[in-house]
């Protein structure tokens, strides 16, 4: 799932929570919304999709199928390795931002402008949280201990497993809590320390924040905001979720002290506001609504009944099932029995399924091109690949070297590791009839072959299977491109979708590459080249030869 997809799918959920919140804010326990925002956060931060038959996206798929039979093929097969009700990890290569771009000098020129804009927004956003926070922390560090019998007494009767420090500062106006693991409650100097009822309200309120790790929640919300800064609904969520954390805390204070204390607590809140003084006349609309919302919500707090709890549960379960899950893949669920299915398949392509990913290829096996494969084995390289953008060689030390755009420099390329077992299953599903022996490949994968994965900027991907028997490359081409490759098993020439053409020039430059890599001599290359051309001209009915 790409970042955009995560953002969009979470948006629908946020919108649903927003509607429920507007309708039911003071009717169900506030915890309901905290849980719903938590689910939204998960959707925004964790690139995992949970499939459900009752998902709104299933309905969308069904409608789509009714409209267009053709399109439903794609909609239905959107997740090649998934299972009804299981969790599917998307490719680790595309969860951060659209296509993963390997780091390193080879790709420094090709960061997409979208990624760059996102990165700038992310950094600006993150700094606007971190810098004021650090500045604030510097002030809080200068706080003083409090000598107040009531506070010490109260602290003794309310033990927590994290040690809580209660200190005083003359640099703050309202009480606050900071620190996730070593929480500190900071009280302003200018509150009435003889008003023990107010102190008790304040301390109870802050203790509930600490007990619930609300500081951590706020940081996670901030993280989601930084990552999804381009999504206005995430801003809405940030604001509302922060308010709901306060409202839920207020609610619990009321439940602790009893409903008769509602006016006193609301009044204490207003008095704290009052003590801030009427200095700044700059009053935002948010301010009005948020404090007013708090006061009203406090005054309307009721003890949770079985009925409201049940209602809340139905809302949470319903919203989550309908809006927070992805469509259950019906065709997949039906065919699951036929093949072993892994619930988790890291780093395997998930965009489309089946042979749609595979190149259109003309393959010569070892018996067709014995000299070529033998010469390769005798050379310094295990595989050679070329297309219009780049050339690639895999050395004897399994280093993957890439040369771009007919440059001269070969640069080492970074790769991801893929679990061989997952790759074996993926291969069965996506390339059931490859141009080599599937049986042999499966046994190599089962016997400790290593699988490396390379993702390129334009959606092109490669899986490289390495073991003592040599190297084998599996190409993934979402968009069909012309390429030529030889590896330990075969020579493969691929072509665009239609017409199936093979370029004489590309083939010729591939042979040049083999010569310059000391795999073939010039004479061998010329001979082999003319054999390939001959074959294409005389025997092949599918591919046409062009210049």
């Amino acid at each position: 799932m790409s970042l955009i997809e995560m953002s969009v799918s979470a948006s629908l959920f946020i919108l649903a929570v927003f509607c429920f919140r507007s309708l039911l804010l003071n009717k169900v326990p506030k915890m309901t919304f905290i849980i719903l925002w938590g689910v939204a956060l998960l959707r925004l931060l964790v690139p995992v999709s949970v499939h459900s038959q009752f998902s709104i996206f299933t309905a969308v798929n069904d409608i789509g199928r009714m409209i267009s039979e053709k399109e439903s093929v794609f909609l239905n097969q959107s997740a090649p390795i998934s299972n009804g009700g299981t969790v599917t990890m998307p490719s680790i290569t595309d969860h951060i931002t659209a296509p993963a771009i390997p780091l390193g000098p080879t790709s420094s020129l090709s960061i997409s402008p979208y990624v760059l804009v996102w990165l700038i927004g992310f950094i600006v956003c993150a700094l606007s949280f971190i810098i004021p926070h650090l500045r604030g922390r510097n002030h809080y560090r200068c706080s003083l201990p409090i000598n107040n019998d009531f506070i010490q007494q109260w602290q003794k009767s309310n033990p927590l497993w994290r040690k809580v420090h209660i200190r005083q500062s003359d640099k703050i106006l309202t009480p606050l809590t900071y620190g996730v693991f070593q929480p500190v409650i900071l009280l302003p100097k200018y509150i009435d320390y003889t008003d023990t009822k107010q102190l008790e309200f304040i301390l109870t309120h802050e203790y509930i924040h600490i007990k619930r790790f609300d500081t951590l929640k706020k940081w996670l919300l901030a993280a989601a905001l930084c990552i999804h800064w381009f999504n206005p609904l995430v801003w809405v969520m940030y604001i509302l979720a922060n308010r709901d954390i306060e409202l839920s805390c207020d609610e619990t204070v009321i439940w602790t002290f009893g409903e008769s204390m509602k006016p006193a607590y609301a009044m204490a809140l207003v008095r704290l506001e009052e003590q801030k003084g009427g200095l700044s006349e700059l009053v935002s609309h948010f301010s009005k609504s948020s404090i007013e919302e708090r006061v009203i919500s406090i005054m309307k707090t009721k003890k949770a009944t079985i009925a409201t709890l049940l209602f809340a549960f139905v809302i949470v379960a319903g919203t989550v099932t309908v809006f927070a899950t992805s469509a259950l893949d019906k065709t997949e669920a039906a065919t699951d029995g036929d093949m072993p299915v892994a619930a988790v398949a890291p780093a395997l392509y998930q965009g489309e399924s089946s042979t749609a990913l595979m190149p259109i290829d003309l393959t010569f096996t070892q018996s067709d091109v014995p000299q070529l494969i033998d010469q390769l084995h005798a050379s310094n390289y295990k595989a050679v690949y070329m297309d219009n953008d780049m050339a690639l060689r895999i050395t004897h030390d399994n280093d993957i070297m890439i040369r771009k755009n007919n440059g001269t420099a070969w640069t080492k390329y970074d790769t991801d590791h893929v679990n061989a077992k997952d790759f074996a299953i993926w291969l069965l599903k996506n390339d059931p009839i490859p141009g080599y022996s599937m049986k042999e490949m499966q046994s190599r994968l089962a016997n400790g072959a290593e699988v490396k994965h390379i993702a390129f900027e334009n959606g092109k991907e490669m899986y490289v299977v390495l073991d003592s028997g040599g190297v084998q490359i599996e190409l993934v081409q979402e968009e069909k491109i012309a390429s030529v490759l030889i590896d330990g098993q075969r020579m493969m020439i691929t072509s665009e979708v239609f017409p199936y053409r093979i370029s004489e020039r590309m083939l010729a430059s591939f042979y040049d590459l083999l010569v310059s890599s000391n795999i073939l001599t010039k004479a061998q290359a010329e001979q082999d080249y003319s054999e390939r051309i001959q074959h294409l001209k005389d025997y092949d009915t599918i591919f046409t030869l062009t210049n």
Partner: protein
Amino acid sequence: MSIKLFDSELNIMEILWREGDTTAKRIAEITKGKIGWSKTTTYTIIKKCLDKGAIERREPNFVCSALVTREQVQEHETTELINKMYNGAPDRLIASLLGQKKLTSEEISRLKQLIERLE
């Protein structure tokens, strides 16, 4: 001449007024035990006092001595900088979005009426 100091800075001054000239190291030891400040925090606050001209330092050993008397010091007026920044929300921008601004007296009284009405 009068000088405005925060409570944290006053604590440093108290030590100097009580004990006379003191090395920064000794001040840090005292504040660590009494107030729970780290050495860095104490040094930061000493630096603030130096900047405000409340103390001066002499080498060797960073000996600090008070330049002002108790009478010359005013409490820093709370209203000046006070936490615009943080109210549980980690950031000022966000704090303003969340509505952590000060209310006018009319609004305060309106809120009080609201409580009474809902009671």
